[in-house]
């Protein structure tokens, strides 16, 4: 292990390390702590210039209450869920199949198709913006969650396929050969042999895609409008268009918006990180 394990270093360094780590962490998370602080402040604090100090009164309930009961936030959150979950399911399903095909079979064009998926995943997605918007409009899916979901599925498929294919590649190929020798149909091999083995990859990918989609802002802006279909990232600025910059409400809203992926991260940390490092690309 590098650097030298702390247990093998001098006592003073051990102690200073133990102190340093939480300290550095606090500095690292300072912006977040500030938001958390903002979100429990009364509006008056901002008027009085008490931006960063201790809240003059603890208004969490009223602030979050406003976010939940007096704004469109719940609708936005719900939209986010309805966009994110089908996307995760769709993208993972498609890419499982594609990854299986690309990872297991040798056929002409295998590598080419695979590379197209990768390349597509890396293109600056702005180049898709205008045509995709037109396509969505012409399919009557503009400003619908479905339109957003379909696009997200398609675009994420590139990344997911890269991920799944590499994962399947790493499975021991003799498993598939063993199944073939046993006379098992190919689709059954996929269903009963490969799929169960991909569980960790599925989990990792699902968590990862969940966060990506949940945090998407660009496409939400391009393909949707208003609280009918827009996800929470796009909705969060709604607080801003009222008469003054409502820092406290926006902070509360931000925290609410950030919560699902954060919870996801903490619950599924292992998978999440596996996903990042395995798939390696956003």
């Amino acid at each position, binding site marked *: 292990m590098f650097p030298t394990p702390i247990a093998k270093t001098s006592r003073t360094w051990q102690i200073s390390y133990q102190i340093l780590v939480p300290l550095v962490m606090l500095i690292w998370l300072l912006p977040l702590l500030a938001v958390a602080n903002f979100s429990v402040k009364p509006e008056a604090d901002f008027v009085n210039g008490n931006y960063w100090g201790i809240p003059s009164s603890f208004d969490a309930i009223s602030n979050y209450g406003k976010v939940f009961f007096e704004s469109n936030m719940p609708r936005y959150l719900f939209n986010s869920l309805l966009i994110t979950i089908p996307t995760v399911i769709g993208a993972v399903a498609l890419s499982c199949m594609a990854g299986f095909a690309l990872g297991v079979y040798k056929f002409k064009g295998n590598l080419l198709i695979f590379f197209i998926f990768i390349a597509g995943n890396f293109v600056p997605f702005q180049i898709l913006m205008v045509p995709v918007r037109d396509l969505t409009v012409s399919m009557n899916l503009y400003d619908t969650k479905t339109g957003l979901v379909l696009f997200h599925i398609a675009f994420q498929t*590139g990344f997911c396929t890269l991920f799944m294919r590499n994962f399947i590649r790493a499975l021991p190929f003799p498993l598939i050969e063993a199944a073939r020798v046993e006379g098992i149909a190919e689709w059954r091999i996929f269903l009963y042999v490969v799929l169960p083995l991909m569980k960790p990859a599925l989990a990792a990918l699902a968590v990862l895609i969940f966060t990506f989609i949940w945090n998407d802002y660009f496409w939400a802006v391009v393909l949707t409008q208003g609280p009918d279909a827009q996800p929470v990232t796009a909705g969060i600025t709604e607080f801003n268009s009222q008469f003054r910059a409502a820092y406290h409400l926006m902070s509360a809203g931000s925290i609410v918006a*950030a919560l699902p992926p954060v919870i996801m991260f903490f619950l599924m940390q292992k998978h999440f990180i596996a996903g990042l490092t395995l798939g390696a690309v956003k």
Partner: protein
Amino acid sequence: MASADTNRSWYKRNEIAVTPWLFLLPAMIFFAVYVIIPIGQSFWISFHEWDGLGEKTWVGTANYERLLGWGDQNMDRKFQVSFWNNLKWLVLYLLAIPAGLFIALFLNQTVTGIRFYKSMFFFPFVISQVVVGLVFSWFYLPREGLLNAILGVFGAGPVNILGDPTLATYGIIAAGLWPQTAYCMILYLTGLNAVDPEQVEAARLDGAKGHKMLWYVILPQLKPATFIAFVVTIIGALRSFDLISVMTNGGPFGSTRVLSFYMFEESLSEFGFRMGFGAAIAVVLFFIMLGFITYFLYAMYREEKGAH
């Protein structure tokens, strides 16, 4: 049994050849419809003038001429600004890699609670860029911002980072570095996990210590992690949109524009809807990215060939 043998269906006989295509089909359709074809369409649109509503008018390479300043025109000013900003993003965003490495080295210990600390350090990556943008724009507020409060303690400042055209881009990049560093940190932490302990031991016997160990033994082994960190950071840098949109909306007076933002502005913003011109910007951006895509694919290709 025998009859089943001779009457094997066409599918059964060609099972291994046909199956992959059946499995690929849905993903390929989706991908073609939403990604491949639109790329082509963007190319097509970039040769037109089009407001997104009426008919397209073929203008040939006029959009590119205006953008890149071919012939007697000057290069589009906004494009220049955007392009240089993109370069700044590309270069400075790479700081996330050493920063991530540094934090990863700092945290690569086994003490109680280190798992918790690691996840807290990773935290910013999970948060939406919109939220990050908001948080940092408050952090930078010219009068009330925490940054100026801190600078004030040292008797410096105040600065209005996002209001100063020479600083605003750096301010946004710094905000972007926050989650990106977290990302690189995770990559390096997993990379460090995979460092061969025997090599470290061999190096210890060889008398390599501290930064020498890092430079000669650890870093070379972290090459895969570095490669990945490099790729994701470049892609992240070229895709920078959310932050700019939230933090400065391209301003002040367009000084924080990057190509992706410029193209969005031209195509879909309030005063935009010059789809052809926007598409031309996208195409240029695409070609810049193509360099990196090619690099990545080449690396993958080599790996594939090496593996078999």
